[in-house]
């Protein structure tokens, strides 16, 4: 009797939720994500890629390579034909650099905010709208004490909103704020800057050298990503796909190349 009433109750709940929840009693592994390339092979080797339907945090101080990673990820997504959105909390995106990095600007919705309040509201609207391949939120220039004041339930809400969607929610910050809501947390640090003489004329004019770029050290702070079996390939052994939670287990370096197209 108990089993039949349970089955009746179950079917009733399923009928009530029909159209809103596909299968309410089906087990869903929330740590399995589809991963897409960051556009930087070294980073893909470290983390496996950026997870869809999850929040990723890229942290670091100024000049640590966060923007380079952001531009690379946006370029990778727009090159795949996806529509992306960039919520720019302090209006610091440079379209010239973005274009040179390979971003298809006509596929990037750029929201130029003036403060974090506008940025969070804009992020909420964009996630709710759906259909974006990536929603990137640049909070790099917002003071850390301001970002810390964002209540944790807001991050939970953002994570829940992006779940089960093909959208990558990418946050660029000075430090991680979303805590356990972020499925992937990376910390970047600036390495050595590389300078090179422009030509032999440097003898004539000693300052005529070029900033060629700088190296970036990246640490994997947290990863809740389980890579689906079919996505495990040899090159991603560093991502350790069966590990549920990783704590600072990976470190990788990549170098950036300065764009001289603007000059």
């Amino acid at each position, binding site marked *: 009797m108990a089993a039949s009433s349970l089955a009746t109750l179950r079917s009733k709940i399923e009928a009530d939720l029909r159209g809103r929840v596909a299968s309410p009693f089906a087990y869903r592994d929330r740590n399995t994500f589809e991963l897409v*390339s960051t*556009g930087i092979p070294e980073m893909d080797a470290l983390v496996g890629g950026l997870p869809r339907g999850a929040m990723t945090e890229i942290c670091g*101080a*100024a*000049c*640590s390579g966060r*923007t*380079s990673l952001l531009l*690379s990820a946006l370029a*990778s997504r727009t*090159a*795949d*034909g996806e*529509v992306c959105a960039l919520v720019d909390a302090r*209006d*610091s*995106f*440079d*379209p*010239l*650099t*973005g*274009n040179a990095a*390979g971003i*298809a*600007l*006509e*596929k*990037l*919705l*750029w*929201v*130029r*905010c*003036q403060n974090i309040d506008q940025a969070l509201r*804009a992020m909420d*609207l*964009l996630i*709710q*709208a*759906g*259909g*974006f391949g990536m929603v990137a939120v640049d909070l790099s220039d917002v*003071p*850390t004490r301001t970002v810390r004041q964002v209540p944790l339930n807001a991050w939970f809400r953002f994570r829940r909103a992006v779940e089960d969607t093909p959208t990558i929610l990418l946050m660029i910050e000075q*430090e991680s704020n979303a805590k356990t809501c972020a499925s992937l947390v990376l910390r970047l640090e*600036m390495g050595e*800057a590389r*300078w090179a003489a422009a030509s032999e004329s440097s003898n004539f004019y000693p*300052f*005529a050298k070029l*900033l060629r*770029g*700088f190296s970036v050290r990246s640490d994997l702070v947290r990863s809740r990503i389980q890579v689906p079996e079919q996505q495990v390939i040899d090159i991603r052994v560093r991502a350790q796909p069966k590990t549920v939670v990783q704590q600072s287990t990976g470190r990788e370096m990549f*170098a*950036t*190349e*300065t*764009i001289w197209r603007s*000059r």
Partner: protein
Amino acid sequence: MGFACVYIADFLVQAVVRGQRALREGPLALLGGAPPLWSVVAANPAAFEAGIQLGMTKAQVAQFGNVQICMRSEVQEKAAHAALLDAAWSVSPRVEDAALDTIVLDLQGLASLFGSDENIARELAQRVAAIGLAARVAVAENIEVAIHAARGFTGITIIPPGEERQRLGALPVGVLTTEVETLEIVERWGVETLQALAALPVLQLSERLGQEGVRLSELARGVRQRSLVLAQASSRFAEEMELDDAVEELEPLSFLLGRLLDQLCARLEARALAVRAVRIRFELQPSFEKDFQTLKEDVRTKPSAKQYEKMLTLPVPMRNGKTLLKLLRLQLQSNPPAAPIQKIYMTADAAAPRVAQNGLFVPCGPDPEKLEVTIARLGKLVGEGNLGCAELVDSHRPESFRMKRFVVANEQNKRRGKCESKLKETSKSRATMTGFRVMRPAQAVRVEMREEQPARVYWRGMRGEVVAASGPWRSSGDWWQEDAWHQHEWDLAIAFPAAQKGNAQKRGEWPEQGLYRIYYDELRQEWFLRGMYD
């Protein structure tokens, strides 16, 4: 069969009720004429049952407590007639605009689309009902027979060939003509129905009534033939509404706008079209204090009404009334009218509806309608100019780009598929570009020079030692214009001593050494920090 006629009984009443659906229930009398001599020009059957008669004055009608009184609205009559034509064109391309309340359609070739004549008539009635009107439909081999059957019989009437005279026979003579003199003459003869009129000899009838008599005889027998006079489809879709009481709040206004939008969308749907742009124009109520002027003779004149106009341009054609209402509401919220609204005009620019044919391998993008609402909300949040996609300008001037409207270009995906695949390949192979963050506006800094290169930079109360420098990279342009520019740019590696950065460095906000771009503005003779490499 040949032709179908759609007739709207009590058209004047139905046109008003179409705009104000609350009037659908209960007796309703329409007043017309010049004030103060208003009299009843139309009423619904419930009002006639209650005792209302045509020609009654307003005071007489007011004695009937349960009868609602409205003014006749020519604006709504025109809109209802246009909607009726649109509904007819949705069924047949050959339509005659016989009268304000009567439409005739050529049914030739429609059997393969809709089936039998009954199905066509039912479909017509449904489509007319969708625009808010209740129609009588008659189908016959002859145009005139169809018209008279629709005016004489309720519901759907099918008159088979050969039965015209028999079926029309029961109708009163009044359906054939509205000329009072002719009707009086026929009535004096004791002829009341078409059957009796058809039985009269044609020759004697023509001797007494002339050609009009012959015409009436042919109509009564159902043998008069004529060609269809085709109406030209209009590309203008307009709806208007005049309000008894001016509306000031946005909420009640939304209901009215939503109703007009629904009517427009229904008309466009009937013509298989969609909205490309919506224009709204409000006539605003003049305020006494500002707009009424007292003349020397103490005679007050009514000033011309103020107007408020707004245009909503859509990136893709759409036909969803709810989406359009949301967009209109957002526009009105950002720039509300300055006075209560008395009259609403709404016109729609029609376009072919959007065809969405996505491929299996084309990534899904945002739904254009939903995206448009989101963009409108974002525009309200951050400002219209701070939203969109950046478009580079062909210039060496720093920060040379402009914002343009963001549109999801699905069509471009197919054309640019090959280009993007190449870009994807090259992006995988090339090195990661150094990101650059711009400071808007550029921040003023103080720079100490040593041996013609920056040695120290003072910024936000901090002193930075220049570790490495690259420059100067000189650029200038637009010297023939007022906004000329002439700059010397430097790429600097700046080290900030830890003691000066204080808490900021402890929190990790500032690195010990960072890469910055500064420039010297020759015209302003000042140094500025343009941004940082990140």
